[in-house]
């Protein structure tokens, strides 16, 4: 890997960390297109539990890994939501880069082989 590519990657990662850690604090908190469609027709209480009606999300189950320390893009135990999102977003970017780049590196075509 050349030094020039290294700088590009570092710059790109910095942008991604800023987007995930900082800008995401200003993202819309409305349900997304899928979630909004799934909730339409049901009524919800303050905790987000379905109280009545008919909708796609009616039979929705809990996430098997809902107790993950990073669940819902926050760090469990961190009270300040800005700090929580900052840390979770940064961790997500770095983990995704590490996992992705690592797997792609292992799978890459070696020079001199045609596999």
């Amino acid at each position, binding site marked *: 890997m050349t030094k020039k590519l290294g700088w590009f990657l570092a710059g790109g990662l910095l*942008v991604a960390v800023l987007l995930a850690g900082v800008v995401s604090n200003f993202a819309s*908190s409305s349900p*997304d*297109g*899928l979630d909004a469609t799934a909730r339409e027709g049901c009524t919800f209480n303050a905790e987000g539990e379905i109280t009545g009606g008919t909708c796609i999300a*009616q039979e929705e*189950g809990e996430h098997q890994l809902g107790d993950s320390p*990073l669940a819902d893009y926050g760090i469990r135990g961190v009270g300040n939501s800005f700090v929580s999102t900052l840390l979770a977003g940064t961790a997500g970017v770095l983990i995704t880069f590490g996992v*992705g780049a690592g797997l792609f590196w292992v799978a*890459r075509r070696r020079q001199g082989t045609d596999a």
Partner: protein
Amino acid sequence: METTAMHIANGIVDGPVSAVFAVLAVAALAFCVRKARNDLDERLAPMAGLVAAFIFAVQMLNFQVLPGVSGHLLGGTLAVILVGPWVGALCVSTVLIVQCLLFADGGLTALGLNITNMALLGTAAGYLLVAGLLRVLPRNAQGLAVTAFVASVVSVVVASQGFVFEYALGGTTELSLPWVSGTMALSHTLIGIGEGLIAATTVATVAKVRPDLVYALRRFRKPAPVVEAGVKA
């Protein structure tokens, strides 16, 4: 249940249909890995890691599309342009797997459904449009931006209809399919426009800074111009 759900949750599509799509997703990803190896060299591998990390970041940025409805980038088209279709599908899958396992976003049972819609269908639709549009549009930052925009809008709507298909096969509730399809298509057309703007900005920026890192500028070759070839021969 207070969640920042962005992908299909558990229990919305039944177990058997979810299992079928999980098998389908694993098989398709294995095929992608085989094809991706031809593209993955020492430059593309770290670049693909960055593309996955960038998609993870931008998926956290929900933007408002209608009152009470938001959306976020899915990333298939962006990945196709920057790292190609096979590696691109693997990038989006990596994001979905990390989100599911670590961030409790998108049900574990529903992972095959989410991968099918966003990583496979979305990327495939994006690829077909990118390959087609780059035959007629100029291969520079502007041409790439227009391509990214148009392909993103179509790709996001196609991915949304993937969910409608899965819901039709195994939905645990019985809402009117035309209604589900229409509602999903409307919100995802708007989400696609947002995604298109983000993808266009991103690829145009990379094309200006490091055009050599843009897969779509290296590959998807134009067919040889017949007339010139004839003259030269």
